[in-house]
């Protein structure tokens, strides 16, 4: 398919050079790339934290880290991996791929999109800077009250309360943006039930974030006010209830788990059909099971509280809803296997990671069901068994899926293919390292090792499997180095990808790699699920795919926009506004230190106002020059 460049129709020449062009960019693809690079960098931070933790636990009575350092590291490992690695890598794919998958020229609000990115970046930088400025949050990523409100002499949980609050605002902004994009900017003919599954799962994810983040937002404000302004939300001595935090946290926290894994499920649902050369089995069931998981996800939060004393009736109820959620999850897994069944499988790197995802997610899912068995959960809760479970879901599941996505879509982003040989090394090392690290943790937990303990004594039988887990963690680190090397060398040394290197199914593969600023020279008219496939293949009497004759197209195949293409102009106000907001937040963190905190708040508010007024007063598309 020939791609004609139509930049002459754009009305302006996009400036794509230099740092300034990145700072002011409102292009969803560039913002996606920035999210991806940030996530990769922060994964090194989170990974380093993990290696320190594993080194400390390699043997009994570890002395590498102090209790204080360990508590900061495991807390920041959780926060970093959830909020600065998995969520932004999902945001990277959503930013880059959703408009391409639905045939849009950009997201609905390009400047809001840029704002969300900068807010995310500055917030994570603020959180990470805590290592050097007074110490990091050390109350676990769950920030349980009343521990988190107990020792207010330290600023540590203020970083958490404000940092996560700001990250939440960023996520709400980008989620509202994606929903509006998907609802109103689809190509002609792209009905909801013709949307690629990744876009569908991103839609569900966005709704989950929109509805769950404000709840933890309330909890974070309560925590912050308890710490700084003497409120008594979690003060047991004044009839406040520490369990309130747990409810607010997990009403967010459980949907958050699905936020982390649903986009990954979407990616796998794209890759499996492509490399099986078959449509996704039961597309509508995969979509609706995703929606069902989203709904049920709001009804299971208290299964994180089975030891807190909610009473047997509540525990029974939440146990049953937790079991229920296994049904739509199972439906997804069965449909994926059925997609492979009878196909013609190409076992390249994206496919290996996708299959690895299914294999690992089955383990994580089954161990998840064991948490629904309330009495059994009272033994598993807060032990290494739980640590094993959620790493099987979030690494073996989410991370494997996202890595599959990188191998699958990076050719679209860069126009170059990743190296297959390095990719296979990456997969097998990671698969081995992952199972060696987290498999034994099931046994450690069942044998009585609680999580969040900086050391363990001799004589409880924890030594051997901890040693294995530590070895495994370094194998994972090695595999990530292979991965990063592979990604870094691709733009220079990768083989050219072309528009459609995988003979794929969805319309993002109809445009150039990398796509032009305006994505599609001509927006395709969509008549089918897997529109691109149907433009290439028909079926014979047996139902097998056969290539369509050259030049066969249903007319009209593309739409001509009457008014020409309008692309938003670059703007640096979103970054200014985000910087002001984070400065304001940092001022709140240092509230207790008086003039410093107030000064930062005033300056931050000023910068925020400058950004917001500039933004509001600026037309979206500048006049053509």
């Amino acid at each position: 398919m020939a791609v004609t460049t139509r930049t002459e129709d754009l009305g302006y020449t996009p400036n794509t050079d230099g740092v300034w062009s990145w700072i002011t960019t409102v292009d969803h693809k560039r913002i996606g790339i920035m999210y991806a690079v940030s996530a990769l960098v922060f994964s090194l931070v989170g990974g380093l934290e993990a290696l320190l933790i594993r080194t400390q636990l390699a043997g009994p009575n570890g002395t590498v880290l102090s209790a204080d350092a360990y508590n900061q590291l495991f807390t920041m490992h959780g926060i970093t991996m959830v909020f600065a690695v998995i969520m932004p890598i999902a945001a990277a794919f959503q930013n880059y791929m959703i408009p391409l998958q639905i045939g849009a020229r950009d997201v609905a609000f390009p400047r809001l999109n840029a704002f969300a990115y900068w807010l995310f970046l500055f917030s994570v930088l603020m959180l990470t800077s805590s290592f050097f400025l007074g110490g990091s949050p050390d109350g676990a990523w769950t920030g349980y009250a009343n521990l988190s409100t107990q020792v207010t002499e330290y600023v540590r949980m203020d970083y958490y309360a404000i940092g996560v609050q700001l990250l939440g605002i960023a996520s709400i902004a980008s989620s509202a943006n994606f929903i509006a994009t998907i609802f109103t900017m689809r190509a002609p003919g792209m009905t909801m039930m013709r949307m690629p599954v990744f876009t569908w799962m991103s839609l569900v994810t966005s709704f989950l974030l929109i509805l769950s983040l404000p709840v933890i937002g309330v909890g974070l404000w309560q925590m912050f006010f308890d710490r700084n302004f003497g409120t008594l939300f979690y003060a047991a001595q004044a009839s406040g209830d520490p369990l309130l935090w747990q409810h607010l946290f997990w009403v967010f926290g459980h949907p958050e788990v699905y936020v982390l894994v649903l986009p990954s499920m979407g990616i796998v649902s794209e890759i499996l059909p492509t490399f099986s050369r078959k449509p996704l089995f039961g597309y509508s069931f995969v979509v609706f099971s995703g929606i069902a998981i989203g709904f049920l996800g709001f009804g299971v939060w208290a299964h994180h509280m089975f030891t807190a004393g909610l009473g047997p009736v509540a525990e029974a109820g939440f146990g049953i809803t937790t079991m229920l959620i296994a049904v739509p999850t199972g439906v997804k897994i069965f449909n994926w296997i059925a997609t492979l069944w009878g196909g013609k499988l190409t076992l390249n790197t994206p496919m290996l990671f996708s299959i690895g995802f299914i294999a690992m997610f089955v383990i994580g899912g089954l161990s998840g069901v064991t948490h629904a068995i309330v009495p059994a959960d009272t033994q598993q809760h807060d032990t290494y068994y739980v640590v094993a479970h959620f790493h099987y879901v979030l690494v073996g599941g989410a991370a494997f899926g996202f890595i599959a996505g990188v191998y699958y879509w990076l050719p679209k982003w860069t126009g170059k293919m990743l190296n297959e040989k390095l990719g296979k090394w990456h997969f097998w090392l990671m698969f081995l390292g992952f199972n060696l690290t987290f498999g034994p943790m099931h046994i450690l937990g069942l044998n009585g090792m609680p999580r969040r303990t900086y050391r363990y004594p001799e004589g409880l039988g924890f030594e051997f499997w901890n040693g294995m887990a530590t070895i495994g963690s370094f194998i994972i680190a090695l595999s990530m180095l292979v991965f990063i090397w592979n990604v870094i060398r691709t733009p220079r040394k990768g083989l050219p990808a072309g528009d459609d290197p995988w003979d794929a199914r969805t319309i993002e593969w109809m445009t150039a790699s990398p796509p032009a600023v305006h994505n599609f020279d001509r927006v395709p008219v969509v008549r089918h699920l897997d529109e691109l496939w149907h433009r290439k293949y028909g079926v014979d009497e047996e139902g097998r795919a056969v290539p369509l004759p050259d030049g066969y197209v249903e007319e009209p195949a593309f739409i001509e926009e009457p008014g020409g293409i309008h692309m938003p102009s670059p703007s640096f106000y979103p970054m200014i506004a985000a910087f002001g907001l984070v400065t304001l937040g940092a001022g709140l963190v240092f509230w207790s230190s008086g003039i410093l905190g107030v000064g930062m708040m005033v300056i931050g508010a000023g910068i925020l106002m400058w950004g917001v007024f500039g933004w509001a007063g600026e037309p979206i598309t500048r006049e053509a020059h």
Partner: protein
Amino acid sequence: MAVATDDVFEEYEESTEDRLDRTRKTAMWIWLGSEVFFFGAMISTFLLYRNSTNGGPGAEIFNIPFTSASSFILLMSSLTMVLADSAFSRRDQRQGRIWLIGTAGLGLTFLAGQIFEFTEFVDQGLTLSTSPFGSAFYLLTGFHGAHVAIGVLMLAMLIAFSLQGRLSPDHGMNVELVALYWHFVDIVWIVIFTVVYLIQI
């Protein structure tokens, strides 16, 4: 699977302005959905702590007639907002501005009432740190007040843009969106007023 091409293009051929308008409204509704959960969690917290007075004053210190009056003022601001919106859709900028100023004025009056009410309560011994009841009350009504204040700020921006003659549909900020937000904040207040002040169990 042939598709009736008319269906395919209907949505797509609307004007850029209409589409932008629809997109913005969608986003605003999504945002308000998020706000529902925010206030939902705040109100739930208040309900949990409505009797946790920790020996301090409880709901008996509410001055229902006063708060009813300020609630009425806020409700009236929704009316003026509707009038402003319809004036702008008639492209009557001058009258629209007057109604916007009226709306902002009513909003500010409500906020003044809230500040007065807060000082009264503090005088009677209910502060942020008296009891979980006090904490929950001030945080809930305070965050609502902050939403009203942000609304007033947005109204002020609209008035300024209108004076500069820059209030066109191409702007991210427009009267319809602010109106949506403003009505929402009013409705939330009605819920708060009912649950916090009127229903006393």
